[in-house]
């Protein structure tokens, strides 16, 4: 019975509640034992706080230009007694403030794109796996075609025509990810659909929608979370690359990728701080997501740990 509950087979029972707590305890213990995931979680927590409270934390207005104080080195004195902790850029804007504002776009785009891609992919995978036949063929061939196309090229083509913007960016990045989810969900659904508990639900006269979303879906959530955490990492990287190419959000919104794009013009002059700090912000965030993803994979499927 307890085993079944941990698989999420029963809907709600006292056992499940205590089981959830036991699982949580096990997760925390495993996380502390692995050390790095804890640090990663702290970093992500910090990024999240910065993303939410950025405007309160930023010492200066990120878009306030100050031509007299352009390209100031880190720790240099800024306007009205303020300090450019991380220096100022070619227009005299405070790098630290822009960095803090930039966290918003990275997290927002990363997480929203995952929701868009995850939702489309999960529904497509459930439908394809449950019904099979022609509808399955159509979805999977569509996926094949999309994967046969280097993703960044696809994104470039759509964004050039649609124009930059947060919503467009989220849609394009999200649609770029659906195939991964669809394939995994489909494979899981295929095997789950023959299981007894699904048959039982069918015999009880549950509607197809209810079987798909209430009986099958909860059993697929674990692998989905693992993919999602790795996926956030790669989506943030892709967002940075697109912003770097000038296809991200409008230029007045600071993002880490566009800060790096602007730093390029100052490279020869060796204004290193313009490039180093936004890059470090991306690396720390992406690295943390990757570490959490790695840990989550080992935690949810200990068999894989052996194989590293």
């Amino acid at each position: 019975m307890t085993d079944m509950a941990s698989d999420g087979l029963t809907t709600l029972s006292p056992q499940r509640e205590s089981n959830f707590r036991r699982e949580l305890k096990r997760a925390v213990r495993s996380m502390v034992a692995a050390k790095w995931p804890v640090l990663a979680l702290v970093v992500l927590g910090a990024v999240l706080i910065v993303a939410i409270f950025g405007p309160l934390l930023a010492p200066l207005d990120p878009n306030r230009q100050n031509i007299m104080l352009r390209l100031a080195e880190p720790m240099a004195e800024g306007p009205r007694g303020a300090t450019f902790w991380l220096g100022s850029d070619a227009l005299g804007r405070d790098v630290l403030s822009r960095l803090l504002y930039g966290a918003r776009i990275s997290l927002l785009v990363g997480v929203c794109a995952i929701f868009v891609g995850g939702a489309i992919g999960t529904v497509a995978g459930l439908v394809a796996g449950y019904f099979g036949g022609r509808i399955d063929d159509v979805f999977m061939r569509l996926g094949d075609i999309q994967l046969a196309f280097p993703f960044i090229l696809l994104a470039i083509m759509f964004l050039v025509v649609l124009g930059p913007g947060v919503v467009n960016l989220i849609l394009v990045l999200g649609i770029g990810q659906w195939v991964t989810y669809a394939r995994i969900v489909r494979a899981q659904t295929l095997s789950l659909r023959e299981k007894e508990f699904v048959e039982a639900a069918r015999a009880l006269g549950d509607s197809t929608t209810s079987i798909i979303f209430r009986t099958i879906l909860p059993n697929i959530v674990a692998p989905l979370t693992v993919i999602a955490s790795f996926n956030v990492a790669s989506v943030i990287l892709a967002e940075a690359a697109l912003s770097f190419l000038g296809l991200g959000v409008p230029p007045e919104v600071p993002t880490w990728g566009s800060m790096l794009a602007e730093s390029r013009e100052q490279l020869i002059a060796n204004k290193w701080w313009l490039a180093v700090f936004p890059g470090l912000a991306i690396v720390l965030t992406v690295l943390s997501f990757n570490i959490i993803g790695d840990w989550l994979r080992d935690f949810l499927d200990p068999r894989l740990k052996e194989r590293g």
Partner: protein
Amino acid sequence: MWTFIVRRLLQSVIVILGVTLISFIALQIGGDPTYLFVSERATDEEIAMVRRALGFDQPLHIQYLTYLGNVAQGDFGNSLSYRQPAMEIVLGALPATIELTIFAMLFAIVLAIPFGVFAALYRGTAVDGSIMTMAMFGQSVPNFWLGIMMILFFGLYLGWLPISGHVPFLMPLLRGDFVTAFTNLPQTIYYLILPGVAVAFYSLSRNARLVRSSMLEVLGQDYVRTARSKGISEYAVITHHALRNAWLPVVTMIGLEFGFLLGGVVVIETVFSYPGIGRLVFNAINQRDIPLVQASVIVLSVIFIVLNLVVDLVYARIDPRVKL
């Protein structure tokens, strides 16, 4: 074998059709595409004229078929900024991009094998730890930032390597000028090091992890134990018995790898002012030169699809387990 080849060929044709369809949709999705081709100050008559000239007044299915027919002949229209056929410009930039991609691919595969093998053999030690930390880091660094950091350190601070430019090797080779090609080669490589490493680092990291995990799996197999028990040297066990199977997953990935690297190349070429398709796309994006963007994207995609086809066919030949 033949049915497999024919089926795979048909599949590739369908995918290429899909690619043209997607690029056609991309053009239409923002509303009337005529506005992408006229300046902002164009009068209504001018807009109407351009619309007729480019065929945007036709029904959609006719437009697509016309588009398809043109694309099949390599005709993407004139580049808006260069005033030359977009295809010619793309083909001119292609050899440089291929050089960079091949260099990066060699780097990503050749180095990944020793790294992965050593990490697996010294599993749990500091060697393993540092290689895997490096690999984790490599999968988290944006390639263009790595490029920028290498420019700052190796190019500007140490002054060891050139930070931009390109010495052609393939171009003279294709023209039949072998002397120039091979006298250029050392310089070509010298200029490729920084951008190549920047493009390849992510793949190198992923491949090293892949080799390590499949090596660990193989080392636990019976035939490796048998080989050891026969008293063969450890070196021979690893190179002849274990490695041969351990790097198959990497071979499988070569096709996909190429596409992935092509994606990275687009960004990296911009960082290093490297005269390939990537920089072309970047400039075309900034000038909203739609024909040039489309020509570049489709050419790169078709190369990617054809390469995947070739890899699949080769793989089917070398791995006897693939049932045809």
